[in-house]
């Protein structure tokens, strides 16, 4: 017992001396499981790489919980140095002028040069302001991609579709072969937000919300989007599309269990799917509509970014800048990319992984990056919409009603637009 105490005492003394000299910074994130472990590994690597700063990552639960904790902490002056905020919450933190120091300013102030062009196109705008200045530092980025059940396609004797028209043509054959032709896992992210990006259609007024919060309005009654959901509903009725609710895993399960032929998932699903899928699989880009002019552009990034919270000392801010610099170095990016399945966000990291032959070994890991590197369209850079998590909830509710037959597609989008615009107007008041 005494020995145990002595050991603990010694350990404490050592850790105290080592952190005495270093500046401590904290990082709150919303990742759990394996992804949470990888964050700890990244932090360890950073702490081992230098002695001036000591970074402590803290898991705050889910993305939503991390944002809520960050907000509560900021209000009481106890904010962490770095807060991870997910795509849908970006408007909340970026519009709160003064809550964060733009990543680009922080890094430049610390004496580094910041090169926007070092980042791959798809991640460059989403967390930036309308001038293109990086406010958040893109961290874990993913793209919605289509996973392919190789056996199912072989059995039906068809090729993976590039467009939804091609899907319509092969769906009966897949069904005949005994598979559910198509499942997906998140209608909001994959069939709404990224419907707009892949088909290069405007999502909201005010330049998708980037220019101003005042009078920003959704454009979800766009006839093309309505057509997409009319098709999904018709496909479901004909047995070409399986819908198992708003939960991600309930839908993924059908693909894992070799019951579905095609599944729209995330590029980040790759790691887990390798363990759970009962059949060989490959992946390709999220389909678009060949009939829509200018379609086939890159998708928005999903995932989350890191934000440097304001109200911290210069010393600590310098450490945060050091860490951001460390995080975007090709080696760390490559490590993170390979350990989690999230895409590499810099061109250098992508080239490094490619040169090592990583994608020959695992071609699926490259699909998300390639999709993000497709030519950008006018409307594929991102969106900035306030109270967006709640707008997503409205969409989820109405989509559920579409597939249970309670409302028509047209009525559902009218409701989403009406309630969504009310929330946007409300947000404009809070930010004004």
């Amino acid at each position: 017992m005494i020995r145990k105490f002595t050991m603990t005492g010694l350990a404490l003394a050592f850790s105290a001396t080592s952190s005495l000299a270093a500046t401590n910074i904290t990082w709150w994130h919303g990742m759990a499981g394996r992804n949470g472990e990888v964050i700890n590994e990244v932090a360890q690597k950073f702490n081992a790489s230098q002695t001036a700063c000591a970074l402590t990552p803290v898991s705050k639960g889910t993305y939503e919980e991390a944002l809520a904790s960050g907000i509560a902490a900021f209000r009481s002056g106890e904010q962490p140095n770095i807060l991870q905020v997910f795509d849908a919450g970006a408007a909340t933190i970026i519009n709160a002028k003064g809550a964060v120091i733009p990543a680009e300013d922080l890094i430049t102030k610390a004496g580094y040069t910041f090169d926007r062009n070092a980042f791959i196109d798809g991640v460059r705008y989403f967390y930036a302001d309308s001038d293109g200045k990086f406010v958040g530092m893109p961290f874990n980025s993913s793209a919605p991609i289509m996973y392919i059940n190789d056996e199912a396609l072989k059995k039906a004797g068809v090729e993976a579709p590039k467009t939804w028209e091609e899907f319509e043509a092969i769906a009966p054959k897949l069904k005949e072969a005994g598979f559910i032709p198509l499942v997906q896992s998140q209608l909001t992210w994959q069939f709404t937000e990224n419907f707009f990006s892949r088909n290069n259609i405007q999502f909201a007024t005010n330049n998708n919300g980037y220019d101003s919060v005042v009078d920003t309005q959704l454009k979800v009654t766009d006839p093309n989007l309505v057509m997409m959901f009319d098709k999904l509903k018709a496909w479901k009725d004909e047995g070409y599309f399986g819908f198992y609710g708003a939960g991600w895993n309930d839908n993924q399960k059908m693909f894992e269990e070799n019951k579905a032929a095609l599944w729209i998932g995330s590029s980040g699903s790759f790691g887990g799917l390798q363990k759970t899928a009962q059949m060989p699989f490959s992946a390709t880009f999220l389909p678009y509509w060949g009939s829509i002019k200018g379609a086939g552009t890159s998708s928005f990034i999903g995932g989350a970014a890191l934000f440097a919270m304001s109200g911290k000392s210069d010393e600590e801010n310098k450490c945060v800048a050091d860490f951001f610099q460390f995080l975007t170095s090709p080696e760390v990016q490559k490590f993170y990319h390979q350990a989690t399945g999230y895409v590499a966000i810099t061109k250098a990291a992508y080239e490094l992984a490619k040169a090592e032959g990583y994608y020959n070994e695992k071609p699926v890991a490259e699909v998300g990056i390639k999709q993000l590197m497709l030519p950008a369209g006018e409307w594929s850079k991102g969106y900035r919409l306030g109270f967006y998590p709640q707008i997503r909830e409205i969409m989820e509710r109405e989509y559920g009603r579409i597939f249970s037959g309670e409302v028509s597609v047209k009525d559902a989008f009218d409701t989403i637009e009406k309630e969504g615009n009310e929330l946007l107007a409300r947000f404009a008041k809070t930010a004004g």
Partner: protein
Amino acid sequence: MTHAPLSSPTPAAPFPSGAGGLFRRFKARPSEDTSAKRVQFNSPLLPYLFLAPQMAIIFIFFYWPSVQAIQSSFYLEDPFGFGSSFVGLANYTDVLKSNEYLGIARFTAVFTALVTFFSLSIGLLLAVKADGVIRGNAAYKTLLIWVYAIAPPVAGLMGMMMFDQHIGPLVKFAGLFGWEMKVGLNYNDTAFAMIVVSVWKQIPYNFIFFLSGLQGIPVSVREAAIMDCRSGLRRFWTVILPLLAPTAFFLLIINTTYALFDTFGVIDVIVKDKAANNPITLVYKVYMDGFRGNDLGGSSAQSVILMIIVFVLTIFQFRFIERRVHYN
């Protein structure tokens, strides 16, 4: 929601503590108070000192947040607290004008009524039956009580597995009768699953109280009743149930608040973090708008509305239902 200590409000006992004592004080019958044992304190400050920790907790964890909620319900502010503007009652009118909110309120009312009714009646039925068992009664009672030790999210998780659309045994069972149950997709099916899991979770609690209430009914009263009336059912309605009324009334209030608030964990697990078109209760809506949507003003207004509902409900229960409860 504090849970009362596990003593039964037996009518014959001189109300030493617990629920019976609590409610008797509300009745304010001074003539009986004089007969109760009174503790004398040497210093007039001492009782307040003893009360202080409890009062501090109530103040910090209840009154203070309540006042803050009421205050922020009149403001519209950005989540980080940079700017907040006074909007008067706009948050309330926005909420009350919303058809969605009214739909959720309707569901909450139905849900609360059904959960309270079924968990009370099934708990009572089981208690009466277990009270009659003589051989091996400890085993029965333990089996009926242990469910209470399960935390709500775990109960929700277990319930969700029973109702899982892919592997749930209850879904397969319902399929035998031609009921294609789709929890998570179909509003009514999800509501059904929520009610079943919530009731299942609460039955043991009611069982414990009813059982101890039954055991507190003096044998002499029961024997006298047997002599007067041969019908067991009639004896139950005319003699046993009235004597159980204080317990039942206490449980009615506890179960109502359980259905309104404590079912949060069950609901969260059943909707799997994504409510979509599934039913939710008012308290879950507060969480969704406040913690996930970061709309502080709106969710504060909702929680004040919820506070008023509970306040009115409790007053109603004390005023109109407790009148029919006889404590001695």
